[in-house]
């Protein structure tokens, strides 16, 4: 059995937590102030994930770039695969918050969506 120390990234509080781990099983989580901390610790120690945010080029827009994110968190190990695909992408204006850019980014099953608005250049 081992004890792992973690800092929760669920919100800006940044709770310092201790998790008891037996093999792949998490026995207990201490130090969290809310259920999100417990869930984060269990996931972080078994299959860590992150939301990835970046930008892609916009053709014919009032701005050059539009921000994007993975709609849900993706496995940590897939972050750079995701970025590689993101770098090759571009969209044509207009783009709106929530527009799906790619349905399944880097084989994660998670969509890449726009998080900003770019109007057509006038």
């Amino acid at each position, binding site marked *: 059995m081992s004890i792992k120390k973690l800092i929760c990234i669920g919100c800006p509080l940044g709770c310092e937590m201790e998790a008891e781990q037996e093999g792949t099983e998490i026995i207990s989580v201490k130090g969290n102030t809310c259920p999100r901390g417990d869930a984060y610790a269990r996931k972080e120690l078994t299959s860590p994930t992150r939301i990835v945010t970046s930008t892609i*080029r916009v053709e014919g827009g009032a701005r050059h*770039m539009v921000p994007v*994110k993975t709609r849900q968190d993706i496995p940590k190990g897939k972050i750079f695969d995701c970025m590689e695909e993101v770098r090759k992408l571009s969209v044509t204006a207009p783009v709106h918050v929530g527009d799906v850019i790619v349905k399944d980014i880097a084989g994660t099953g998670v969509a890449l969506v726009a*998080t900003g608005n770019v109007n057509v250049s006038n």
Partner: protein
Amino acid sequence: MKQYDVVIIGAGPAGLAAAVSAFDAGIRSILILERDREAGGILNQCIHNGFGLHTFKEELTGPEYADRFVKQVEERGIECRLNTMVMDIGVECGAEAESVDAKHGVDAMEKPSCRSLKYVTAMSRTDGMYQVAARTVILAMGCRERPRGALNIPGYRPAGIYSAGTAQRLVNMEGYLPGKKVVILGSGDIGLIMARRMTLEGAKVQVVAELMPYSGGLKRNIVQCLDDYGIPLKLSHTVVDIQGKERVEGVTLAQVDEKRRPIAGTEETYECDTLLLSVGLLPENELSAGLGVELSPVTSGPIVNESLETNIEGVFACGNVLHVHDLVDFVSEEAGLAGKNAAAYITRMGKEEAAGQVQIEISPQSGVRYTVPSHIRLSQMQDTQTIRFRVGDVYKNCFIRAYLNDKQIISKKRPVMAPGEMEQLVLKKEQLLTFVEPEEKSHCLVIRVEEK
């Protein structure tokens, strides 16, 4: 000259939230002035997630958070002039105001029964220079980054030195990567966020150096921006030399002692083409100072009362122009209060306030650097009042205590406190009233950090 009930300087998160709340409190004559080409302020370049957990109960990116407030402003039909730079804010009082009104042709019937109007001078490419009159002004100009010039770093001035926020704008909005091999000085949140961002875009971020023995950023950003990518954080380290004449070629770091002096023999040189500075934010108060607003030497922001009103009647302040926040959610909350209070000021205009009202001065002591607000007029206080402040050092297992006229009224245990994370206390009016003798007009509330 056009006259408005509320003129808001800045359409960042503070300005937008203030406008929405003033409107919802019944004010219809509102104008927002913004110098950028779009509303949303710094949020537009903060493309990372982590915003809105308090306000919207979900995790949003900066642009998404801004979009929610922009939509609220649009839905209400609030006038927002973009590409407009405010040059000056002035006050004309009493008889003077009348003559100025006559000069500018304000209809006498329209003139409010207030003692003073504010005059906002602005300019834009389309309208040139013009003035608007305002019954109240809400200052929401935000803050600026501390530049290299404020740091005394020796060495040449080559290209490749950016503030972290400038690099953020270049990468996220203009689509340029400012460099390939990066050293970051300062562990403020923007520096941490940019360490990750530049890494994702293919740059090699070699190290983040922090002068203080603790990080200036949020703990979770150390985890998800540095630890995730194996970027080392060197506490108690600073830049002692920058190499390169035309372009940065290398940066030398050294460890510092407890008095923050570099220790000889600890120097390490990193080959790099870019140095990012994330060394603090300063409220942008040139306009406020020009208006005669009293500023705090600690925060560089206006000194305000419980209504977030400055020493100039009818002038309110909120967001990062008041004091630098860690979380936009708290900016929105604070700005909402400023908007509501500006609306209340207009509603109550002309009704003279009772003289000699009970006032509580808040005195920050031992470990507490400042408080916002800095004084409370009991008659204007709501049922509860949030006091926000920062501590000056890292404290573990300490107490935040509040004493009203030497009697302890609040004791709050805090496992960890750090200068990088804003603290708050909530005062209850009911409780204050039990400790305040009504004949006594002036009271003192001490807030301090105590170890036991």
